[in-house]
């Protein structure tokens, strides 16, 4: 199996879709000559030309909105919002338009639009270039929400997002772009709504997304040294959610930690905790622990930033708290 970086895996899916399907095009800020602020779209302009790899003005509402209009007319646009912080500017189009056209029209239209974006801390950008806002979109009926954590997943899920007939908000994590991983020779679509069990265990389930999948795997190795067997599950698709896999895992292990980089309060971990307590109430041996960032706009100084966002040691501490309850 070939090895790709997470960045190359995203590019591979974009290139394949552009190559095989005239209805696919990509647009966003600085994605053409520059290849995107994260260098994800490098080389695509050269292969597909400026008609299908379109630089846009700094107009997030028009980027998402024109993607919606083109999607309703039968195209499969993939738009890039450079930082997920800037999704806030396009919220009206995403929430009031993309998510609602199908219902408001009584099923007359569909909006096969993919909105790629990225974020995440770890490089001291301060408060407006590193937020993790995925939970906001899980609250909006009509949207689908994906957060991929490995090269294989990001490639297979992006393909499924492009070919889903609904608007999909597709989160990538900045610090994951350089990580390498094996991928199948040929792109294999990964169905939406299917969780991935990264590591099997019997004492505690950690349900983690994005960067925290990797931090949780590291924490699981540490815990194993103390004789604690940890299962790590990545939902991958936050909406729709693979409740069966997650609840099933917790029924087996009887303890659960949720982990994401977003602030804990109102984060996706809260939804997970609600689903799990309802589905596995009689199995739980400890309160569900939530790991997330401190409730503050992200401070600039590296020491403050690293303190505020969670790492493997935070997940490990939460694992230990759950097993300390007997």
């Amino acid at each position: 199996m070939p090895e790709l970086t997470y960045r190359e895996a995203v590019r591979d899916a974009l290139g394949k879709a552009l190559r095989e399907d005239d209805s696919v095009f990509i647009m966003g800020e600085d994605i053409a000559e520059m290849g995107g602020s994260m260098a994800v779209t490098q080389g695509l302009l050269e292969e597909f030309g400026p008609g299908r790899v379109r630089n846009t003005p700094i107009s997030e509402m028009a980027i998402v909105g024109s993607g919606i209009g083109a999607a309703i007319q039968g195209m499969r646009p993939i738009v890039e919002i450079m930082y997920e912080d800037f999704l806030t500017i396009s919220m009206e189009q995403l929430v009031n338009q993309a998510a609602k056209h199908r219902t408001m029209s009584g099923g007359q239209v569909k909006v096969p639009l993919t909105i790629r974006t990225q974020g995440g801390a770890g490089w001291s950008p301060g408060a407006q270039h590193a937020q993790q806002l995925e939970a906001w979109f899980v609250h909006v009926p009509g949207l689908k929400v994906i957060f991929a954590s490995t090269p294989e997943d990001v490639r297979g899920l992006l393909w499924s997002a492009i070919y889903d007939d609904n608007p999909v908000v597709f989160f990538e994590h900045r610090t994951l772009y350089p990580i390498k991983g094996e991928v199948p020779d040929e792109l294999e679509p990964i169905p939406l709504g299917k969780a991935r069990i990264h590591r099997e265990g019997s004492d505690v389930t950690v349900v983690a997304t994005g960067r925290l999948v990797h931090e949780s795997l590291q924490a699981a190795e540490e815990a194993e040294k103390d004789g604690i067997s940890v299962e790590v599950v990545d939902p991958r698709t936050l909406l729709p959610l693979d409740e069966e896999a997650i609840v099933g895992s917790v029924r087996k292990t009887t303890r659960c930690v949720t982990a994401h980089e977003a602030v804990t309060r109102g984060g996706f971990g809260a939804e997970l905790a609600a689903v799990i307590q309802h589905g596995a109430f009689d199995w739980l041996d400890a309160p569900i622990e939530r790991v997330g960032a401190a409730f503050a706009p992200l401070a600039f100084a590296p020491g403050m930033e690293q303190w505020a966002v969670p790492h493997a040691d935070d997940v490990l501490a939460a694992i230990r708290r759950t097993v300390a309850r007997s």
Partner: protein
Amino acid sequence: MVTVEERAESGGRGVSPEMLRGFFREMLLIRRFEEKVEDRFRAGELPGFLHVAIGQEATATGVCAALVREDVIASTHRAHGHAIAKGTPIERIMAELYGKSEGCSKGYGGSMHLYDVEVGNLGANAVVGGGLPGIVGAALAFQMRGEKRVAVAFFGDGATNTGAFHESLNLAQLWKVPAVFVLENNGWAESTPASQQLPLPVDELGKRAAAFGMKLIEADGQDVEAVYLAALAAREHALAGKGPVLLHLRTHRLTGHFVGDPQVYRDKDELKEERDTKDPIRLLGARLEIDDDEFAAIDAEVTAEVEASVEFAKAGTDPKPEDALKYVYA
């Protein structure tokens, strides 16, 4: 006003008396439909939030007459006239207002979300300015596929103050997509007059096109022939690959913002004068010399159609409550 050059651009077409009579009939149909909507709302039969466009019939009729079925529109919260003029049968619109499955949005939309994709109505929008970005995208799709179609956004003067307006016109002009932005300038943003929401004199709002280097075409929005000719010119300009057009139509809202609006903010004498001098149906009737008998005959016809639409709507099917989930995802 439409200039001589623009008439020339539109092929020098005049508008025949027969066509103008057709416009007259459609505008009167829209008027009677909306009066019936007000009446049934006050009677407690219609749920929701309703906005009528009484006084603005010429912009809907004139613009949509210049379009073909394959052209698409995005409408506003003041949508009944646009939907009728784009070709949706009135009984399907009335059924929508009654929340019935036979409605043009199957009861999922209501007055502010009238859709009919078959005739090119991509939906009315309850967010001021919300429909404009999507129209840029529709026009982009037509451009990319080489289709001879235009995408048209209706919006009011209030919408020209939104970010969506500026981002949309900027992008549309940058990419020269075949879009027409129809500014129905009635001088009111809900209850707020032009003097409190526009930094330009209300009649000069078309100047905003210059900020984007966009072609501006203007017409008296109460003169349906002028609107029609201007819309033809705008469509031809957009289809010729010359870029989008801002079509500025000065019009007059002769009623409140919403059905039931007491209009405490509006000078009663001025409103009366506008009603006496700016009604597009009266103006066209006088020009065509439609006498009382002919008017009564046309009125009886369209009134009967409207009555029939109410009967159709009332006899419609209530959607199953649990079908609220049916179209969340494709």
